[in-house]
């Protein structure tokens, strides 16, 4: 899970920084003159190390952005509309309030295991956050539901089960109870 990798990376790097601060604070017990040219040399090395880390970071991540790739064709398209305070999720396009109401009361959409699914997400009122949670409760991915725009979120589900959709953009008093659901079989 990428979240835990990020968490542990933060603990290691953040912990290292805290240790450096403790070391520097402790060094003041035995004060002495320092050679600032030596400090500048260390800073120069630090600059190049940080620059290298940043470039490695770009190399590892910029190619993995979650945006749709035009040369890839989804196996299945699902239409999503957010409206205070529910998500309408449907196999067919949702173009008006009646279709939205019907989608919120219809049986949950079922998706095939392993298929590349494209969610076409928009909103009929304010901004919402369309976020997909796995049966284990992990946030698999998300996109914004913004009025006037259709955001295309592509996900491939390898695990069968019930997937919850929660709203991740504050949208009013019912924000925390705004949800949707679909199944992968």
């Amino acid at each position, binding site marked *: 899970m990428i979240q835990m990798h990020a968490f542990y990376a933060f603990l290691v790097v953040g912990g290292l920084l805290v240790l450096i601060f403790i070391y520097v604070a402790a060094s003041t017990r035995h004060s002495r003159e320092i050679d600032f040219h030596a400090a500048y040399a260390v800073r120069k090395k630090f600059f190049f190390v940080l620059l290298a880390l940043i470039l490695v970071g770009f190399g590892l991540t910029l190619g993995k952005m979650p945006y749709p790739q035009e040369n890839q064709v989804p196996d299945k398209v699902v239409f999503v509309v957010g409206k205070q305070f529910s998500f309408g999720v449907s196999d067919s396009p949702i173009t008006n309030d009646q279709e939205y109401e019907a989608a919120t009361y219809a049986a949950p959409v079922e998706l095939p295991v392993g298929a590349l699914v494209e969610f076409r997400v928009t909103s009929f009122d304010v901004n919402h956050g369309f976020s997909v949670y796995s049966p284990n409760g992990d946030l698999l991915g998300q996109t914004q539901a913004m009025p006037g725009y259709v955001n295309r979120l592509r996900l491939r589900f390898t695990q069968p089960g019930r997937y919850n959709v929660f709203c991740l953009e*504050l949208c009013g008093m019912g924000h925390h109870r705004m949800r949707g659901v679909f199944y992968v079989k």
Partner: protein
Amino acid sequence: MELTTDVTNLWSEGDLNKFRRMTLIWGATVLLLLPILASLGYFMRMFQSNFFPHMRPEWFYAVLTLHSLGMVGTWFVGGMAGVSYLLTQYTHPSLAISKLNYWGTLVGVLLLVACTLGGLFGTGWYFLFPLPLYSQGVWQPWATVTFFVALAVLGLCWTIWTLDLLRAIAQRYSLKAALGLNYLLGKPGPDVPPLVLISTVSLIVSFAGFVAAVIVIVLFGVDALGYAIDPLLMKNLTFFFGHILVNITMYLGVAMVYELLPSYAGRPWKTNRVVAIAWDAVLFLILFAFFHHLYMDFAQPRWVQTFGQICSYFLAVPAGVVSIFGCLALVYASKMKWTLASVLFFLGIMGWGVGGIAAVIDSTVEVNFHFHNTLWVPAHFHTYYLMGVVLIILGFIDHLGLEVSKLQESPPRTKAIITLLLLGGYGFLSMFYWAGAHSIPRRYAVYPNELAQGTLYARVAFGFITVLLCGILLYLWETGKRCIKAFSA
């Protein structure tokens, strides 16, 4: 090189005393607001702990709005007041404008209290278009209007303050010199203290942010008149303004540390070519880093998202290589005088660094796909706010109180304050980080059954906030005494 004004003629003793007194009033107001606004955060974590099962969630969202706007505003004015005072050594900021801002800020805050606690206006600090116009009957039109009037009053006052400080700097240094261009080009020029350089960069950027805020407010009005406004444009403008305001507050705190920490370490911390390059780079990068707030808006052009990540990553270079490294080099093996103020400065820079690491991780598009609007976000901004700039400003107020009152501090109580702030602060933050890594959403009044562990994390956080509040109260007792004596001196 000759400067445009002789600093010795800038202030009479009486005028300087008046300015110092005004700064103490700002400091006392910040100290008064701190426990009140922190209690609102305490209330929110209690709400998420299900301690108030019968209370309507509208209260949570209204308190969230007041807490976030209140905290951001309080530390921004705290930073501005502190920097203004320190700038009196080099320039002549207007006392009248500081006073105008004090009363303007007070009016703005009262209006915010009225529309949130009185009118349940609950859109969060960012009032994301068009949510204020879709209240579902929770808040009335008067609350929406009051909210925007409050923003307009605050925005107008703070823009005037920003321009006045820039005016004061420009009267002594040319803008070119204040931005350290002489250092950059290797040409002779006046010595520009880091305080002046960082303040100039910060003030120029904050002015740009306030202009964006004005445009947002105007466009809300245009939409209310029936003309359709693009929500993506509004979101870009809103986060341009919001990202800048929060970051500039941090930089104002850093400027204070550049100015004051050398007096404790017994070593100079001056502007040189590297420092000038670093802060001028910040001036550019900060204007575009805000794009990382819109990664999940897939309609945004892909090159914009990529540019957002590049700028966000590169912002770590001037912060880490120049300011944080500079702070460490300044203190390393020095004859450091450790007092409450200097410890808070040092820890504040550490908090900036720790929070910055978490922020850079989250500014990776691939990671943000899983972290956006989870509790990881308040985790990192509370780290560089609460354990960063807040500690620095508390350090500044203590420094000023001590300087004027000459009332010495008690080492055991200083140790107790630091211990409680560190234990309570980082303990409280750890629950945000842990919950964020476990996909718990932010801004939820109540967690759904599937994410019920969020309630448990909120309860643990409640315990740590209790410790943190004890630290804050002990700090207020210690520093409050010095401020009262300083004020009556």
